[in-house]
């Protein structure tokens, strides 16, 4: 399940950056891979693609800092 989520996230990120250079655990923010719209687009993508509703406490940048972090977050929300 985790791997499927990662593949989906990578597919989404391919529209925003060169995912071939992005490791699963790389810091997306620190690495300069994306622009400021990333977080907005990632939030929208996660909500629509995985049918996840975000709560106030979910708005933590660490949840979206890397592909692994985002995939773990999605898995937690869906469990």
């Amino acid at each position, binding site marked *: 399940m985790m791997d499927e989520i990662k593949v989906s996230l990578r597919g989404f990120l391919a*529209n925003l950056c060169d995912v071939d250079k992005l490791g699963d655990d790389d810091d997306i923010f620190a690495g300069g891979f994306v622009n*400021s*719209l990333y977080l907005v687009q990632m939030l929208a993508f996660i909500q*629509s693609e995985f049918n996840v509703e975000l709560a106030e406490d979910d*708005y933590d940048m660490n949840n979206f800092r890397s592909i692994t972090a985002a995939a773990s977050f999605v898995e937690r929300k869906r469990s």
Partner: protein
Amino acid sequence: MKKQLLWNEADEQLRGEFYNFSERIAHFASDADRSEIFSDELLADIKAEKLLSALIPQEYGGMGLNPLAFGFLNEAFGHACTSSRNLLTVHSMVCQAVNKWGTQAQKARWLPMLCADAVGAFALTEPKAGSDAASIESRAEKTEGGWKLSGTKKWITFGQKADVFLVFAKAEGDKIIAMLVEAKSPGISISPLGGMLGARASMLAEINFSGCFVPDENVLSRPGFGFAVCASALETGRLSVAWGSTGLCQACLDLSCDHALKRAQFGKPIIEHQQVAALIADMMTNTRASRLLCLQASASCGKPGASADVLTAKYFASRSAMKSAGDTVQILGAAGLHGDSPAGRFFRDAKSLEIIEGTSQIIRNLLAQTARMDLSGH
């Protein structure tokens, strides 16, 4: 024959009520345009009708309009006066942000206030940061119990009238933070900006923050999520501008038709001359197409894909308003160039619609990006 509507009777009744009220606004529009002043009398009238509470849920004392009814309200305002619709736009953006991103305590504090008494304004743009919003230079430094805000915001619509600003700044490095700042806070100075081409009664201001203290409880969401707050508020703003543009298209069509029926040349009303008839036909088509795109945008609000629908509606309707207003001046001829006719105001106001809440060029970029994602399955 009764016209078949794409909305229900209840929404149609609301639409009628909003258009009735907009006649009161239209009465002020020309003077407001000339004087560059949004009168306190008109503001009080709008507040008394609770129209500023359009997007605030009823549990907080607001009208709790659905996106379609909110659209009708903006169309009616846009038909009468773009500056008035601007008021509705920026205030509603602040209401939307508090309602979507605020904690229960923040909603309980701010929303009743924004229903009737307080005017909200959206403070993102800076002297060096417009479309590239991430390049803002305003900074919020953490201090005990809150933040010290410093920087300058420019072109802030209704900045001269606002009681509370939704301000975006950088904090903890490059994280964007969204905060509600009361206009009466120490450390704020507000300078009027006049001489605008269009929407001249929008009471624009430059706002300077000099170490202005903002308590922790005024921060919406968390540092780093300010851009998400901003994006969702902008979506509300774009929906508002799209519907307002449709209202302006309709106003152009009404004025052009009325003139073309009354004005006779070569022995017949000018609407019977094919060159003029073609302009009016295009105007009517663009007005209807704009309204349909706005209906789609309202219908998809809150659902996946809403952003693209809202962007499309804003892009098309604002361009249609510009085309319609230009053709209206043309149809009215010399009379359209004179200040006694609203045609010139429509023309100048329409240009602003292609710039505010995202220029047509930025929106094209965003739409192209959406098309690219659609193609790749995301």
